[in-house]
């Protein structure tokens, strides 16, 4: 079973040299720490920055320089600032190669719900609906089951949707799963996790073809 760091490390292996990547809040943010050595990747922050660097050193925080999670950040050589219209323009025009974000639920057809729980205070979708509607490649980082022990990989989302038929891959503490035209497809097991455990934790249709390899993360 993976911890959050493990999920981030596994997702980082999906990154390719030269990718422009948008990282959501939470586990996705951690992915930045595990980009394979030697790969050049540019992080997009949808509030208007390409080339997001690490957090600033203490005392060097700049209130004019934050990421989409409102955290103080830095730039890297080659960074560029732009306005929000251009930012979502590049997202809509599919210039961002990979979008990694969290989810409350994903359906076997790739629908995603991650912004609203009826009955609870709704904070808003921020940029999530734009990102999922347009991204070339979306990977979801999330727990396989919720706190009540219920599967978050469903035949159909129960929560209000953020976007439809958009998620291509899911990485959880238990598994790597592709979203195919036939439904969820088990690709890898987390270390020490059995195929049966994953089947039991997945409410949506799960395709299991032959022997499922255990994932390798350093």
């Amino acid at each position, binding site marked *: 079973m993976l911890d959050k760091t493990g999920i981030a490390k596994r997702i980082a292996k999906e990154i390719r040299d030269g990718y422009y990547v948008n990282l959501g809040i939470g586990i996705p943010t951690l992915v930045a720490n595990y980009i394979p050595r030697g790969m050049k990747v540019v992080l997009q922050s949808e509030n208007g920055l390409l080339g997001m660097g690490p957090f600033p*050193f203490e005392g060097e925080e700049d209130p*004019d320089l934050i990421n989409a999670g409102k955290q103080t950040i830095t730039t890297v050589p080659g960074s560029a600032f732009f306005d*929000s219209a251009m930012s*979502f323009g590049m997202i809509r025009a599919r210039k961002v190669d990979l979008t990694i974000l969290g989810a409350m639920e994903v359906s076997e057809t790739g629908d995603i719900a991650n912004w609203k729980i009826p009955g609870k205070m709704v904070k808003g979708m921020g940029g999530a*609906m*734009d990102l999922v509607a347009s991204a070339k490649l979306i990977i979801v980082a999330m727990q396989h089951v919720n706190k009540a022990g219920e599967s978050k990989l469903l035949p159909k989302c129960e929560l209000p949707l953020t976007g439809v038929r958009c998620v291509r891959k899911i990485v959880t503490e238990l598994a790597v799963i592709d979203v195919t035209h036939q439904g969820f497809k088990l690709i890898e097991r987390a270390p020490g996790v059995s195929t049966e455990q994953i089947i039991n934790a997945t409410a949506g249709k799960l395709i299991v073809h032959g022997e499922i390899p255990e994932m390798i993360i350093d």
Partner: protein
Amino acid sequence: MNKVVSNADEAIKDIADNMTIMLGGFGLCGIPENCINALVRKGVRGLTCISNNAGVDEFGIGLMLKTRQLKKMIASYVGENAEFERQLLSGELEVELIPQGTLATRVLAAGYGMPVIFTPAGVGTEVAIGKEQRNFNGKEYLMEYAFDSDFALVKAWKGDTHGNLIFRETARNFNPMMAMAGRTTIAEVEILVEAGELDPDQIHTPGIFVHRIFLGRNYEKRIEQRTVRKKV
């Protein structure tokens, strides 16, 4: 062509009850602090605010929430604000949540004289309810309208007497589009110079879009999430 006014109170003097205003900023970054404070002093009420966020309890648009000056908030994300939540749940405040890119592009459309734009954001979700949906090249899009607003309040880093503006880092965000979109646009700046002192190639918002400009004072620039790393 001199658009300089002496301060925020003078700049916002004709913002009246029940008007619609746009405010630049993302979180607390790049918000028109001076104009917000002046609106609180003036006490105008029933405002509809279009802004990506609604500030925090004691800062930004949150200050106008505390004084109950807002009738409606149009934003993409409104967390981090207990008073906002209270007013929303009690029905005092109307809220319209829209995707961030849709917000940015509806503002852009207004500035560029385009009545509507089509975006895929929200297709298949509750955001699509009641909206015209249309297929182009095999993909579904929602038709979204340009925002009309009485005033746009923006914050720039530098400005000149003609209203030309330059923004700094991610404090740019929604400010340039809102500057273009307001029927009347008010810009507050940290540095105000004479026309001719800014490089014409580096201006983000040409002065034609800006009606009033003033030198802002006492910027707090609060940080919402102070994240740092230790020096090794």
